[in-house]
């Protein structure tokens, strides 16, 4: 949803509870050639920050 509305240069913050988000977001970034800024494990969630380089 956020990616649909994003422009090049935007950063998207994504929250997830499923650890499967890590390989999935890496596969997505590799496929779309966007950049993962950080993946952070927090007590209640995993926070991923993605920088949109193309869309």
């Amino acid at each position, binding site marked *: *949803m956020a990616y649909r509305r994003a422009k090049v240069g935007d950063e998207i913050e994504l929250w997830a509870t499923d650890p499967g988000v890590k390989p999935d977001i890496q596969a997505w970034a590799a496929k*779309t050639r966007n950049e993962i800024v950080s993946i952070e494990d927090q007590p209640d969630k995993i926070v991923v920050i993605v920088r949109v380089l193309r869309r």
Partner: protein
Amino acid sequence: MKRVLIVGGGTGGTMLANTLDRRRFDVTVLSRSSAHIFQPAFLYVAFKDANPATIVRDERRLLARHVRFVEDAVTRIDLGGRTATTGGARYEYDAVVVATGVTTDPAQIPGLSDVNAQFGDYHSSVAQAQTLWANLNAFQGGTIVLGQSSPVIKCPPSPVEGILLVEELIRRRGLREKTRLVLVTPYPRAYPAEPMNEIVEPILRSRGIEIMTFFDVDRIDPEARTIFSIEGDEIQYDLPIIIPPFVGADIAYEPATVLDANRFVVTDKQSLRIKGFDDAFAIGDATNLPTSKAGVGAHLEAKVVARLLGGAPAEFHGRTHCPVDLGKGLGTFVIGSYTAPVLKYPPNRLNHLMKMMMGRIYWLSLRGSLEPMFDWYFARTDPDKLRKAGEVARHA
């Protein structure tokens, strides 16, 4: 008597109305249509030419006699003032339950309105499902592309079911050699939840279905018969079966902050109360709950709200139990909850028969009279219990 206003006469609204204690509650169901449709059967109208007459009934005949039914479209709900308004009337309540479902919104995707109008779809209406059947029946070979154009859809297994039933139909018509079948999905795999994907993907591959992942439909060019993804891919079709995006009902809320960007009602995961209100609940597809939009949710959520309204403790745990038709007479279920990841639940014929049977007992289940059976069944198939018992591993 406590006045309970239920907005929406689908699965959740009807079950709740029928199960509230008639001695304690004065129940009104307001619905924009008196036609109650068993929506899971759109699949069979579109792919197996099922008779639409068997999937639509008059809501008035499904509600218990003491329930007041009004066919009228609610345009505004004032949660602070405890009133709902329609074009010509105003309803006051002591408690309100929003069970308004979702509708398809192809206009969000450029080109999709035209594509859906021409080729039909199997999530919007009986007429749209019949249009799709007519197109499938006229199809003589080429590329069929099937997929969802938005991440959140009604019935998450429906893209997989759709492509498998298309494959079955095309093979039966002797067109399999002349047909390329492609499933497109915005997710990293054919089925978003990994354990279910381990069941589904080998079946798709064994039936020669191509899978294009990370395909978020951006726009469709009907002239060039091409679908473009945000990720930069494209695919050409002869017959496109594109599941449109979904939005909540066209109702204005006071306060407006109880709706999210998709017009889904912001609802507490456990208590099913609308954010900030003790006397307002939302159930079924209408909510923004992080669970599947499917009849089973509406059913179980209606039970929770019935208990809470009656003053008993209750919580919704996010249980899902979605039947999946895998074609060739096989079926499985997507079973999970807020805390239990989806199970790798093995396909078999009995699961498929149970899905078919649900279409028959659905009308009776709306009365609430089958609850002892459902309670037993849902307890027996509890995802945590099944995982602990190793039952899934044993059957897999």
